[in-house]
């Protein structure tokens, strides 16, 4: 049985109703529990009933995160390789129907970009592409990984979903982590947001973490794009997915991201707004639900929010990011995936982290361990 079959045992509307029916008593029970919190507890923690318990949730999340991860924040940076994409996605700057010139970095250009990232101090890098199998397929990625491996301690990728044997190839090349966001678990609306291209196959995408687990990946990243649908329901399914995966692929580490929809040229406005308060509630709920999962925050969020979130449960941060291929030096004006919100340098962010009583960790892996 794969996750798609598990998923089919649930209906969106029933889950939604049961989340919204949670009471303050359910929240208190979840908070006071001494052992592992279950999915019902998670529903209570993300429910509207929990909004009155935000400070208690934050305190608990803070303590649990420090116990597991210490007073540290892992630093990582995205490296966009290409904005070519055959998919139409209503919310993404790289969408096929967005008629803007496309760019895929050459090896020489990649090394120029890498030099900038190394100067910033980065050891952990996240490679990002659109889905264009002719130009940025597995052979291209293999080449890129071989090219940049000497410069980084840890390489993660955020690319189109692949088959198990393709993941096995990339793992053998030295990929440590793969991030594949479901975008939304609302199967019907998923098809509205992804009308064309391989990405329109909901089932193949939702089964991706299963393929990754079977390929023996060290770490996989889950998440939904917040703003497409009711975030509470989408995040319940993320938690369900996480727990399913942890039981089956027990040798992998997991991370969760919670990107809120950001503006881009010609793009969609969020259907459902999520407030800062609600994002804090979600981060704390994930932490209380799962003490070991890594929680990541990108430069989509603004300065004040990022400064204050450091202590609340997150474990990794990016900084100084560009979301366009060549954005660091080669072609700063190329098409970006979304506008970033926090433009401060990695060193400035490291100082902020330090001021909060935490250490910015640049290296926590070694390519020799791969």
């Amino acid at each position, binding site marked *: 049985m794969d996750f798609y079959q598990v998923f089919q045992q649930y209906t969106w509307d029933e889950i939604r109703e049961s989340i919204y029916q949670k009471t303050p008593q359910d929240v208190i029970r979840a908070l006071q529990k001494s052992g592992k919190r279950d999915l019902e507890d998670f529903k209570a923690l993300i429910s509207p009933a929990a909004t009155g318990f935000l400070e208690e949730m934050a305190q608990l999340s803070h303590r649990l995160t*420090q*116990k*597991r*991860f*210490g*007073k*540290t924040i892992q630093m990582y940076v995205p490296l966009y390789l290409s904005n070519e994409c055959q998919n139409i996605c209503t919310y993404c700057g790289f969408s096929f129907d967005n008629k803007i010139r496309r760019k895929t970095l050459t090896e020489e250009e990649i090394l120029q970009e890498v030099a900038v990232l190394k100067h910033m101090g980065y*050891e952990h890098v996240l490679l990002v592409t659109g889905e264009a199998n002719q130009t940025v397929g597995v052979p291209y990625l293999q080449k890129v990984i071989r090219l940049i491996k000497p410069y980084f*301690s840890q390489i993660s990728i955020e690319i189109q979903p692949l088959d198990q044997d393709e993941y096995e190839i990339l793992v053998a090349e030295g990929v440590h982590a793969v991030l594949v966001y479901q975008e939304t678990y609302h199967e019907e609306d998923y098809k509205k947001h992804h009308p064309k291209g391989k990405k329109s196959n909901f089932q193949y995408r939702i089964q991706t973490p299963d393929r990754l687990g079977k390929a023996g990946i*060290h770490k996989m990243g889950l998440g939904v794009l917040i703003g497409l649908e009711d975030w509470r329901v989408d995040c319940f399914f993320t938690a369900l997915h996480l727990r399913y995966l*942890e039981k089956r692929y*027990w*040798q*992998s*580490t997991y991370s969760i991201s919670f990107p809120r929809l950001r503006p881009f040229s010609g793009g969609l406005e969020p259907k459902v707004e999520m407030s800062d308060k609600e994002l804090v509630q979600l981060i704390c709920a994930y932490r209380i639900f799962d003490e*070991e999962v890594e929680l990541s925050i990108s430069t989509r969020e603004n300065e004040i929010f990022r400064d204050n979130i450091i202590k609340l449960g997150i474990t990794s941060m990016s900084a100084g990011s560009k979301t366009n291929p060549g954005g660091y030096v080669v072609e700063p004006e190329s098409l970006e995936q979304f506008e970033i919100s926090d433009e401060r340098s990695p060193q400035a962010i490291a100082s902020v982290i*330090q001021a909060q*009583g*935490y*250490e910015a*960790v640049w*290296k*926590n*892996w*070694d390519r*020799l*361990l791969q």
Partner: protein
Amino acid sequence: MSLQIADKTFQSRLFTGTGKFSSASLMEESILASGSELVTVALKRVSLTEKEDDILSYLQHDCINLLPNTSGVRNAKEAIFAAQVAREALETNWLKLEIHPDPKYLMPDPIETLKAAEELVKLGFVVLPYIHADPVLCKRLEEVGVAAVMPLGSPIGSNKGLKTIDFLEIIIEQSRVPVVVDAGIGAPSDAAKAMELGADAVLVNTAIAVSENPVQMGLAFKYAVEAGRMAYEAKLAPMQQQAVSSSPLTTFLN
């Protein structure tokens, strides 16, 4: 009072870790306060290329011996490779062997650990394996030549104390190599308890690093370990389960 492991003699029976501190300088200060002479460092945290501003530069004190660990590896093969890299990078043949294929609870794999330990001893390493509190595994590791065993008190990072106490007692009773209780020690009282049981040393990280005042906590652990060891050497008075009976049953024999 001193402890001998392989070629080294330690005055302090408190071993410490280097993770989770809010800064490298605070880590340094806390370790110095704790008096620890053996400090474990994850190979994955060490910069093998650039030496400046590296975690190691904060540990360059005559009193501190480095104990590289293999955190992050998932099997014996990876562990052996990492050990060789560590030996070269950190210039020591001492090794904390930790193989946890389970990244959630970081539970050590007993089968892979035994395999790797046997090989690493042959390669000339001083091997200190991190393991479950499994008395039979400890004997098997002893037979392949490890320098000490490091059974866990409770899940790593949990601060739950000596949940495995019954098995630790058996290990301490049976072991012919030093026993270092590693993982789960959450408070100085846990460390003192382990030492009272007869553990040769304890390894503490999270409880110091995540405390509000790591330097003071380092010192508190130093005292607790010393007190526990002194109590062990002084021999604890036997614990009485009940008061001595006032109506003896055998007076008729007199």
